[in-house]
């Protein structure tokens, strides 16, 4: 079942080959554990050390006494429930708005033949060429004073939600997927009397579950991990997401409490990854080879 790779199965079957294989295997397991798991272990246990122990040299591998107070202090002192809730609100809203508006727009561009559709699609694809971060300052100025209606979205979750909709990558993913749905299927639905919205809802969307899953994960992770944009949008401490609050508060908080807050801030995305790891890893691997 296994495919032929760099080293031939024949070499591996020989006693010497087998010895080398298991040596390399053990080495890689140790290296990966040291490089990727140990830092996580260090963070989780560091938060449980006493304030004296955490700054001791040489450091202790295992805490002498296990304190949970780091975690409870972080929860209370850094007001983590508020910031986590802000992040959840920002990420969920951005995700829902992206699903609604990007799906609708991708459907229109793919199947409804709007006038100037090609020009619009070209304009959307052109934004893929313009790296997002390089435009944060004019984007900030726009959000601070929206043209025509002169409203500010600063310190408002809408300042995260609406710019998130302008995601050319996700929109293009959806459009490409919709393009593959045969027109006959949609026309059959229309002859049966289904309107455009009905067709989208009960035919296109159920067929698009895989791509909707990928877009959802991308959308959620992007907002959850973002730092520079929420740093600009939210100057009110009460409204900041957890990523911004961590950095703002990191200066004047005891080390163990900060580390505990870092662990808590990492849990949601890591948990999501562990639950959906198979889909996420398959998505990354597949998306890459197909370009």
């Amino acid at each position, binding site marked *: 079942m296994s495919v*032929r*790779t*760099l*080293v031939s199965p024949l070499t591996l079957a020989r006693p010497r080959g087998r010895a080398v294989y298991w040596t390399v295997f053990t080495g*890689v397991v140790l290296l*990966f554990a040291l*490089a*990727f*798991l140990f830092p996580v272990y*260090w963070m989780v246990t560091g938060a449980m050390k006493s304030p004296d122990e955490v700054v*001791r040299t040489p*450091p202790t591998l295992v805490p002498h006494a296990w304190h949970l107070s780091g975690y409870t202090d972080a929860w209370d002192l850094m007001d983590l429930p508020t910031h986590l809730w802000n992040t959840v609100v920002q990420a969920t809203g951005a995700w829902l708005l992206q699903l609604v*508006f*990007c799906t609708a*727009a991708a459907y*229109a561009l793919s199947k*409804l*033949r*709007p*006038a100037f559709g090609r020009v619009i699609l070209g*304009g959307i694809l052109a*934004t893929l*060429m*313009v*790296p997002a971060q*390089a*435009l*944060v*300052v*004019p*984007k900030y*100025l726009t959000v601070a004073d*929206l043209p025509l209606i002169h409203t500010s979205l600063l310190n408002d979750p809408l300042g995260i939600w*609406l710019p998130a*909709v*302008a995601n050319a990558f996700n*929109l293009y993913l959806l459009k490409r997927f919709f393009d593959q749905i045969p027109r006959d299927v949609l026309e*059959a*639905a229309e*002859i*049966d009397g289904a309107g*455009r919205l009905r067709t*989208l809802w009960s*035919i296109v969307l159920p067929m698009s579950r895989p791509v909707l899953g990928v877009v959802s994960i991308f959308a959620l992770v992007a907002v*959850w*991990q973002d*730092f*520079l944009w929420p740093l600009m949008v939210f100057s009110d401490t009460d409204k900041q997401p957890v*990523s911004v609050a*961590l*950095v703002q508060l*990191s200066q004047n908080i005891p080390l163990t409490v900060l*580390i505990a807050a*870092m662990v808590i*801030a*990492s849990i949601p995305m890591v948990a999501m990854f562990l639950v959906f*790891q*198979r889909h996420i890893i398959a998505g990354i691997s597949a998306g890459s*080879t197909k*370009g």
Partner: protein
Amino acid sequence: MKTASKPAAPPPAVLGAPEGEPRRAGRRPGGPWRRRLAEQSRAYAFLIGGLLCFALFSWYPAIRAVVIAFQKYTPGSGGEWVGAANFTRVFHDPEFSAAWRNTLTFTLLALLIGFAVPFLMALVLNELRHAKAFFRVVVYLPVMIPPVVSALLWKWFYDPGAGLANAALRFAHLPTSNWSNGADTALVSLVIVATWANLGGTVLIYLAALQSIPGELYEAAELDGANIWQRVRHVTIPQTRFVILMLMLLQIIATMQVFTEPFVITGGGPENATVTVLYLIYKYAFLYNDFGGACALSVMLLLLLSVFSAVYLRLTRSTGEDA
């Protein structure tokens, strides 16, 4: 679902209509002109939300960056034209050359380390026949940790006294380092953080590319007497050349916009050793309140990055058509 399972419907009545005409059965009363208007307004009803967001938050800011780059801009009261004054002022800022030098060095180092390490990892992982899922999950784990947390975590590792990095060096009886606190080691220290945090995705993509190499090529090379390094050189690398190039371009685009690591770990210091272009843009806008200067810098960064983006899109497009 009910409609999808129906047998293919007969073609609508307008089959004979000329090209470009909507090929849908007209159910509504009124002439073709009114029907078309109705179709268009429905299409735009679906499109409008997304379109407005793109117009407001992508297209308009791009135009505005260029406009404000030539203005003295005060939020609330608008801008006045100043010609190229912003560009000359930014150009004479000593931080300007430091920021570009740092960004380019960072990109180059990230490219060297960020290419070699994941490629070697993928190469070795592809040979292992056990615990495959474990390796993939573990290598991708840091990508899922929020970048801010990774940055703070490494800031703690790099602490000259209580940090893990120097503890490890002392344990091995090696001389300690200043890491992110030393002017000459700070940039490399940040590259290590960025590589640690991001290589998971690269490894997974390389792995996928390695798995698509036909096994016969290795067999043929082996029959020709090629040893393992020759097989890597003459089979693996040429076969994955396209993916390698693609990821390199993406990485250049991403690392040229580095911000979180220098902002969180070093604050641009010591002695401007880690100020990056995006960091400088941020400083101009939010510390100096100089939006004209910030936009002038943005335009420069944008022009440079657009070149790489254009090459990337060109490459993906042309091979997408071949496949």
